[in-house]
């Protein structure tokens, strides 16, 4: 009985998974999706609460802006990594894990800070609760 129930589910998951692979957001789309999350508060988020470049930062918009302005000219190399990979969300729904990292290398002045978040394949919407602030140092 379980097999009968599961078979269609697996088939559906397979279709969703392949759809997720086909519709993988481009780096530009990943950046656009990130911009829709700017109002997500840092406070209460385990990985974001202390990640702002200023103690007065309150939301993801502040956090991202703070790191963008650190990509200064003439001081080593700066770049932005933006990518999406097929992944299920916490609710097991198919979609993509999106990662955006701002990076800098100039000798020992070396860092990478950014975010990850989940985007549902069903409606191409980012899941606010999935956002995490990445980076160390």
């Amino acid at each position, binding site marked *: 009985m379980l097999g009968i129930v599961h078979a269609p589910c697996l088939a559906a998951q397979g279709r969703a998974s392949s759809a997720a692979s086909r519709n993988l957001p481009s780096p530009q789309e990943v950046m656009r999706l990130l911009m829709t999350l700017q109002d997500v508060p840092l406070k209460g988020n385990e990985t974001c609460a202390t990640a702002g470049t200023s*103690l007065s930062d309150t939301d993801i918009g502040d956090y991202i802006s703070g790191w963008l302005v650190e990509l200064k000219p003439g001081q080593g190399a700066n770049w932005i990594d933006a990518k999406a990979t097929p992944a299920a969300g916490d609710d097991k729904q198919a979609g993509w894990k999106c990662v955006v990292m701002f990076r800098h290398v100039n000798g*020992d002045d*070396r860092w*990478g800070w950014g975010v990850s978040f989940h985007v549902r394949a069903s409606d191409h919407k980012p899941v606010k609760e999935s956002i995490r602030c*990445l980076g160390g*140092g």
Partner: protein
Amino acid sequence: MITAAQLDQNLGNPISKLCTNGYTDPNDNHCAHFVSHMLDYQFGTTCKTMSGGPNPGANIRVQELFAHCNGVGAWSARPSALVQCLVFVTDSGNVHLKLRKMDNVPKKHVGIFLNGTIWHYSNSKSQVVKVTPKEFSHHYPGPGIALFYGVLPA
């Protein structure tokens, strides 16, 4: 208490030899990560948080280490009896001693001070090194760069 011999055993090691959670990208900054693996600081944001590895995580953020210290101050004010502590280097404008907080700015670094020597993770060399406090104070160029001590978190 960690010993100089234990720290020396890690000289020259890349972060991949210290971290079993796979948070080892050489483009990331591993100074706090090294300190936390050496001293077993598992609070806050850890390598396990980032990579989802199978083992206990170690904190990876300088500003979180600073906030967890049991006392902080300018290096020049370090009590002479404090022979083992954390040592931070950044622009003094990023440090709020009364609040025991440090801004999450790019140019900040941390090491372990023990009996006159500092062990830290050189991100440019991708290995553990040891230096004098004077050398550590020149980790970043600039007139506002200064050292700060932090009494080891419990």
